[in-house]
């Protein structure tokens, strides 16, 4: 008789037994046991920061999840409705407009800076200095001979500059025109493609001029320099009269800037302590570069590296939670 029990009813029975275990346990020390969701973007430092902050929050008793997400659109989608609680790295240099749009919705909050300064600019490997001795001063690029040294067959006699994806706020086409540089801007569709070209050129000691940003593993791995353009100011991008070219805007370098943390606006009320920690969370640039290097150049896993930082800086993050 008992063996007429089908496996379906066996599963049901098992579920009945398990039900009390599955039910949410009594509230612990934290305000809410709902998961705090930190978005993972697809580059190392962002994952590293997310895992460090998440690790700290877990030590404090919170439940943390790490959904993967798209960098720019997360600002105006998942963070506005609480699908994601924290986005850890939004750069002034590439997401300036998107961050403004996100704040305009009123459903997200800028949590303050991450610490390291974002720098992005035209960059060349050191060996190119021989062919264009005036560098890093940008005026050297106006010399046709120097531009030709950076050319390829399809851009010659103009130099070839490999810019970031068109979705990043680069304004390189405008810059080239405003500064009168004999360069053609080629847009890489993704930064993976951009660094693939750099790696290939660097191995062959071939000419290359491209958009690089820091903190990133590339300036650590390859020897090179940033081009020095006229210093960026906000007016330079908006006011044509500013700068050397009286008729055009964008006659200066790229903005440097901060890297910002963002949260869903509801986080403050739902997890006040976690909110405090997330707001206080900062990491210095030297630390971040070293940790990224451990991952990208030495091949450790991100979780290992994050755990080391958390153990080493216990005093620091305990203070944040006070």
């Amino acid at each position: 008789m008992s063996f007429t029990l089908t496996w379906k009813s066996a599963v049901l029975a098992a579920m009945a037994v398990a039900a009390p275990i599955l039910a949410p346990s009594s509230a612990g020390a934290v305000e809410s046991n709902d998961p705090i969701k930190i978005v993972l973007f697809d580059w190392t430092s962002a994952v590293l920061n997310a895992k460090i902050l998440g690790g700290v929050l877990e030590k404090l008793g919170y439940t943390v999840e790490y959904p993967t997400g798209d960098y720019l659109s997360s600002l105006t989608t998942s963070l506005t409705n609480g699908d994601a609680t924290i986005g850890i790295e939004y750069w002034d240099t590439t997401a300036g407009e998107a961050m403004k749009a996100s704040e305009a919705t009123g459903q997200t909050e800028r949590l303050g800076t991450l610490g390291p300064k974002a720098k992005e600019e035209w960059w060349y490997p050191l060996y190119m200095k021989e062919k264009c001795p005036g560098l890093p001063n940008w005026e050297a690029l106006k010399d046709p001979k120097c531009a030709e040294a950076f050319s390829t067959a399809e851009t010659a006699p103009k130099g070839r500059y490999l810019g970031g994806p068109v979705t990043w706020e680069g304004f390189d086409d405008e810059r080239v025109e405003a500064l009168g540089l004999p360069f053609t801007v080629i847009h890489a569709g993704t930064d993976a493609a951009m660094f693939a070209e750099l790696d290939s050129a660097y191995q062959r000691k071939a000419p290359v001029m491209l958009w690089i940003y820091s903190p990133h593993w590339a300036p650590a791995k390859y020897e090179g320099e940033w081009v020095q353009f006229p210093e960026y100011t906000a007016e330079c991008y908006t006011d044509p009269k500013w700068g050397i070219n009286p008729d055009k805007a964008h006659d200066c370098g790229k903005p440097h800037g901060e890297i910002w943390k963002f949260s869903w606006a509801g986080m403050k009320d739902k997890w006040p302590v976690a909110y405090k920690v997330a707001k206080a969370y900062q990491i210095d640039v030297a630390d971040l570069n070293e940790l990224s290097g451990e991952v990208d150049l030495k091949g450790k896993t991100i979780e290992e590296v994050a755990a080391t930082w958390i153990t080493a800086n216990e005093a620091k993050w305990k203070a944040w939670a006070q």
Partner: protein
Amino acid sequence: MSDIALSTGRVHGANRTGQLVVAGMIAITAVILLFPDALSALAKYPDGLVVPFKDWVGAFMAWLKANFTWLTRSLAAAIDVPLRFAFSLLAKGFKFGNGETAWTLPRLSWLGVTAVMVWLGFNFGGLRLAVLCGLGFLALVFFNVWDNSMLTLALIAICVPFCIVTGLFLGIWGHLSPRANRWFIAPSLDLMQTMPTFAYLIPMLLLFGASPVSALLATGLFATPPMVRATILGLNKVPQEIKDFADMAGCTKSQKLWRVLVPSAKPSLMIGVNQVIMLALNMVIISSMIGAGGLGYDVLLALRALKIGQAMEAGLAIVIMAVVLDRLSQAMAHKRPEAVIAAGFWGRHSNTVLAIGMLLGSTVLSIAFPAMNKLPDSLTFTTAPYWKAGVDWITINFFDTIETMRVFVLLNFLNPLRASFEALPWFGILLVLTAVGWRLGGWGLALVIAVLTGFCATTGLWVPAMQTLYLCGVSALVASALGIPIGLWCSRSDRVSAIVTPIIDTLQTIPSFCFIIPVVMLFRVGDVTAMIATVAFSIVPAVRYTNHGIRQVPHQLIEAGIVSGCTKWQLFRRVQLPVAMPEIMLGINQTILLSLSMIIICAMVGTRDLGQEVFKALSKADAGRGIVAGLVIAFIGIIADRLITAWVNRMRERRGTA
């Protein structure tokens, strides 16, 4: 008889007029091209007349979001339950409690899962399949991609049954109501298959949230259509005698459907199932961008850090998973249901019990032996350095030769071609395409084509659309030019076929993103790289359909050819090729559609066309703009598909094999 004679006469008459009309339209296009200034409004679509479709779509999305979020969110919450269970079971383990006091029930042991796969393989396909399943899953363990592979497998395991059931019901509806099929189901399927997923990611994110659920639904939208098509086809093909028999036996409507029709259509249905699995695995990269994680995320993260080897391994893990699941599902389809002789619980369920036992046993053991939960890193190994070294070696030694070739192709062929496509006048093309449509398929087709082409122009996206057409056109041409001869070669030699088949299987399942980055190292960013990546992906159907087409030429025809004294060449030229032509054309049709689906990936290596438009919309979270650009891509595909299908039908009619 006279009917047939009459209609052939009509076809011939229409032929001549048709040719004249098409020629006339081409002449008009040439005139517009010759006098660009006088006829500028016909050459370049006037900005003032652009219809703001994207604003309308955007407003509609906003309305949908404001009024139906409760519905979409509760749907998402419902789907989330089984999905989370699968994630926990296979990959993450069940976590109870919070913070320091939390404890975790371990996930299924890799040993148990692999053992069950071997067992399944053995039961359905014998020793060979068992070895394939075992080696495949062990490779996932030893290459240290198990965690993410299981995340992907969990998503697939929940998604695929979901797609199959939805697809089956939609297909049954399509079968029962031809009218619904013609006016609603078939067009929707076309759209779902040609519209790039990236175009509807933003609406997905807004309505269903950034979570694995969105990823699952996006995968479902993309992977379900073949199941619907296979169901409709299978049910429609069930012989009339069987249907009559069911009626005679006194079946009720539902008995007839579920006990007679669906079982009879099983072979077709299984082809659908197989396609669902393959397409679902195709989506892993994209789903990782909206919250699914898994192998796709591994690929992205590795490529961002230029770890080509790691990306390649994660990509190959996807291939392994695809091959194992594909072979297993095919074996299951071929295995005939055995009569249940052994009665009783044990007799019927011994396999299930055994499998559960293996899973439970190994998982319980894994509490004592952690190595059975996660293989220690010291035992795993990686081939990553070799991939990197290989690519570096080629870069250093062959870059200059490749660069010379690339520049030559770019300057002499691609750039001029691109410029001439960009210059094509919208009004002229609209006329030419409509005339061709009318000639091949009558007024109905002409109307459809005119509307779809008109949409491309009125959105103000004409130039990007022509750039897309250029890249797809060139790639599809190259893919066909390479793929058809390879397919012919395969059809003439089993050995060649045995070598080529696994290669094209891999090309189809490995994420293009894995090999596009190494290609950039050799060919720089730009059109040449994009073309290579597109050709590598879209060559597959050209090879497959050609091979298949030639191989299924009826034996009697070949014998008749031999008897009438054909030389080998004549046999091929006069018998095999003409008979296989419709099949080959279908292959080309698929090649074009696959080229179009690569447009988005190509935008990642710096092409500037509709793909880039979709990306811009994605980064600005602009739902309307993305969907409209996606629709234009879809419409290009549908136009190409309709014209080629109409042409194939005409060819069949003329040969009398319709």
